Each structure stands twice: as C-alpha cells, then as structure tokens.
C-alpha cells in the first residue's frame, strides 16, 4: 500500500522483522547477528528505518527446550525480493529460533513511529489519528 515510496525502477515496501535468537548467544554474538541481517537488508537495496534489540525475554511457551529468547526487532523498507533472500539466510542460521516478517501498511508505519516516540496506543485521541490519514 506504500505506493508513495517509489524509486526509479523498484517499489519499496515497508516490512517489520522480528527474530528470536537462542539465549545462549553472548553479547558480541548477538550484536554480530544483528549486524549481519542489517547488512543483508541494506546490501540488497533496502533501508533500515529503526532497530530495537528487545533483549532477553521469557517466552510464553518453551521453544527448543528453552524458556527465554533474545528478541530483535527491525523495521525496514526494501524491494519485494529481499525477503526471500532474508528468509533463506535466516533458515540457515542456527542461532535463530523463530523469525517473522510482517508487511506494514501506512497505519502500521504511523503506529510504529508513535510507539518509538513513546506515545501509548490506547490513549490516542481520535484527532491524532486523523492527522495520520492526511500524511
């Protein structure tokens, strides 16, 4: 839906990627893994809007007999063929327990923007969201 993000030859689409790494990773390994996937996006013609390492969180249910996971969240804009390459790389990486790519519509992009600035979703007055429509 983000047709306004049009480059010379390819459309850019907003996506959000959330990865759960195994909790056994050391701090540097976690950083390196983040860097690896960020580079993968940018080297394929994408641009990263924001990244958020959410760090160690308890899982709602055990995955691979582990009760915690290292969460990493990134929002990026990329041509549509990047995700396939990303998924192949993520599938090969053994430190990843789960990953999910979500396509973001314009409301989602606006929401994420507000979330990063720390404005709560539930208490948003109606007027504020109408401004988003015009943008």
């Amino acid at each position, binding site marked *: 839906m983000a047709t306004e993000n049009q480059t010379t030859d390819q459309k850019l689409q907003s996506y959000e990627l959330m990865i759960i790494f195994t909790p056994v990773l050391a701090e540097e390994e976690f950083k390196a893994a983040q860097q690896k996937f960020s580079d993968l996006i940018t080297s394929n013609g994408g641009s990263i809007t924001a990244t958020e390492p959410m760090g160690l969180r308890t899982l709602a249910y055990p995955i691979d007999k582990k009760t915690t996971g290292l969460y990493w969240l990134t929002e990026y804009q990329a041509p549509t063929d990047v995700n396939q390459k990303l998924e192949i790389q993520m599938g090969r990486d053994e430190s990843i327990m789960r990953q999910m790519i979500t396509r973001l*519509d314009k409301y989602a992009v606006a929401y994420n923007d507000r979330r990063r600035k720390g404005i709560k979703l539930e208490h948003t007055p109606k007027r504020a*969201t109408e401004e988003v429509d015009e943008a």
Partner: protein
Amino acid sequence: MAKQNDIKYLSTTRVDRRPKKYCRFKKLGIKYVDYKDAEFLKKFLNEQGKMLPRRITGNSLKFQRKVAVAIKKARQLALLPFVTDLMK
C-alpha cells in the same frame, strides 16, 4: 376477579438494561492492531488463552479480524501462549 398483582404483560419487561456494546477500535480511532503489544491483546483472550468472540468483545468485524491475526502472530513469536491456565 383480577387482583392488583395479577396483571399480565403481553411482552416481558426488561429488568436490567445493559449498556450498549461498542467497538473500542472505532471509538478510540485505532487503525492498526499491534501484535507486539501482548498486554493489550490479552484483553481479547480468556483465562486459557483462547480468543473471545465478537459477541463478548463487541468488536466490529473488521477489527475482530485484525485482532485475530495479531493474536496469531503474537502466539507464533511466543509473546502469547497457545494454551495456558490462569493467564491473568
């Protein structure tokens, strides 16, 4: 021989009038249901982590669908459980 308290009504009278349900997304102007906000999504789940029907939440169909997708995404990413006991 009709007594005073023997009066019969044709239609049963409503004793308690419940307040009308409303879609909280429409009322608050929320356009996007975030799968990352597990605490918010818990409002649409019961104790066992099952999704509540529209009948109870009062969501409009459009947003019930979005909530359902968001909950399923949150479950895949272990932000919400698939099944549990006493979630809250």
